[in-house]
C-alpha cells in the first residue's frame, strides 16, 4: 500500500514538472511557424531561401549564434535572430530537427 501511494505521488510530481516546463506542448511548433513565411511550411523551402526541415539542432543553433555575433554575414538574419530568446530558439531548433525534409534539399 505504501509503495502504491509513493508511486502515485511520484507520478503527480513528474506530471507537474513536465507541465511546468512547457505550458503548451505545441509552443515549439508555433514558434517555428513564424519562420515558415521565408523558410517554407515546416521548414520545407519552396526555393531561394534555405530550408530548415531536418537540420540538426546543433547546426541551427550554431548558425543562429554566428548571425547574432556577426561572425556570419547576413542580410536579415542578424536582425531577426536577436528577437528570439535562447529558450525559444531551443524549441524552434528541436522542432525543425524533428521534421522530415520533403522532396530532398532545395
Amino acid at each position, binding site marked *: *500500500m505504501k509503495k*502504491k*501511494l509513493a508511486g*502515485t505521488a511520484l*507520478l*503527480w510530481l513528474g*506530471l*507537474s514538472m*513536465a*507541465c511546468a516546463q512547457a*505550458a*503548451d*506542448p*505545441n*509552443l515549439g*511548433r*508555433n*514558434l517555428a*511557424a*513564424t519562420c*515558415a*513565411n*521565408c*523558410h*517554407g*511550411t515546416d521548414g520545407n*523551402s*519552396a*526555393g*531561394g*531561401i534555405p530550408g530548415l526541415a531536418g537540420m540538426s539542432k546543433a547546426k541551427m543553433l550554431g548558425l543562429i549564434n554566428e548571425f547574432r555575433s556577426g561572425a556570419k554575414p547576413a*542580410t*536579415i538574419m542578424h*536582425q*531577426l*535572430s*536577436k*528577437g*528570439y530568446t535562447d529558450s*525559444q530558439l531551443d524549441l524552434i531548433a528541436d522542432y525543425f530537427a524533428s521534421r522530415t525534409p520533403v522532396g530532398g534539399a532545395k
Partner: protein
Amino acid sequence: MSAARRGFIKGTLGLSAMAALYGCAGAGKGAKGHVVVVGGGYGGATAAKYISMWSEGGIRVTLVERNAAFVSCPISNLVLAGEKQLSDITIGYEGLAKYGITVVQDEVTAVDAEKRMIRLARGGDLAYDRLVLSPGVDFMYESLPGMASAAAKENILHAWKAGPQTVALRKQLEAMPDGGVFAMTIPKAPYRCPPGPYERACMVAHYLKQAKPKSKVLVLDANEEIVSKKGLFTKAWADSYKGMIEYRPQSELRDVDVGNRTAILEFDQVKASVLNVVPPQRAGDIAAKSGLKLINNRWVDINWLTMESTSTPNIHVLGDAIFPAPTMPKSGHMANQHAKVAAAAIINLMSGQPPSDAPLVMNTCYSFVDATNVVHVASVHPYDAATKQPQPVKGAGGLSAAPTEMEGKYALAWARNIWADMLT
C-alpha cells in the same frame, strides 16, 4: 475493493483532471468542430491551412472568398512598372484541397454571432463553431465626396488591392504622355503596407525613366514625413530618380475633381495626367459592420492571445482589419503570422485547452527601389503579459544598410515561400 485500491483510482482521476488543467494531455489532440474562414488573402488562407493541418483534419474548415484566385499586393508594384505580369502574382486555391479545406467562392453579407451563422450572397446560410474574419481593408470614400460615384472610382484608381485595378492603373501609365505628371496621394497612417506608397513612387519612376523620361512623379503625403524606410527611400529618390520624384509631406487629400484629374488639398490643387488616390482605410466591411468592437471606429479590437474579438465570442479577426499593437505594420507577412497565432489558439480552444500564453509574431517587409534592388525592414513582436499585447524586441530587427540585388533575389524568394505557406 480495498481502501488502497480506491485511493489509487482517486489519485488517477486526479491526475487526468490535473492534466486537463495544465494542458498536458497533448494540447490540440481531439479538436473537433467547424471553422469558417472569411477572406482568402495572406491572413485567411494561412489560417485555413494551418487549422486544418495542425488539427490533422479534426477541425473541418470552410474558406469563403469572393474572388476566384488570390492576387498578391506585395510584388504588385512590379506589375505597375511592367516588370511583372498579373499572372505572376495570381495563384488559385486548388492547393488547399489536399488539406480537406472546402473553398467556397461567395460573398458574406451578414454575420449572426448569436446563432453562429454567416449569410452568403448566393449560397444561403453557413453555420460555424468559430469564425475567422480576414477581410483586409475597405476604403473610406465618405471623406472624398468627389469619389462617390462608381464612374469616379473607375477613373481615379487606388490599385491598393491587387487585381483589375493594378492592370487598369498600368494601362493609364502606358497611355500617359511623356512629360506628364503621375500624382499619388497617401492617407494618414495607419494604412495597408506602410512602405508600399514609396515603393510605388520608385517603381513608377523606374518605368517612366525608361519610357517617358520627361515625366514626373508627385507624391502627396498626408503624413508629416515618409512613414517607413525614410532614409532608404530618400536616398533612392536622390540617387536614382533625381528631378523626377517630388515629395510633398503634410499634403492631405480633401477631395478629388475627377473630371479634371485634380487632387484638392487644403491650400493647393494639383492637376495630374494620372491621379492615383490611395484613400483612408478601415477594417473590411464584413468586420466593420458585424457589431464587433472597433477602435477609432475603424479597426477591430482583439485579444492578442487568441486574435478573438474583445466584444464578440467565437469570432477571430486577422491582418489589416485589426487595431495594431505598437509598431506593428499592416502587412501580408504580419497577417500570415496573426493567422498562425489564431490557428494554434483555435485548435487549443476547440479541444478544451487554454491558448498558449506566449505567442510571437514577426515581420519582414521588402521594398523594390528599382527592378532589381531591394531594401527591407524587419521586426519581432513577442506577447508581453504586462501590456497584454505584442511588443517589439528592442535591439532586434532593423533596416537594410542600402538597396542590393541580393535582397532583390530574397524578396522574390520570400514571395514564393509565403505564397506556398498560404496556398500549397
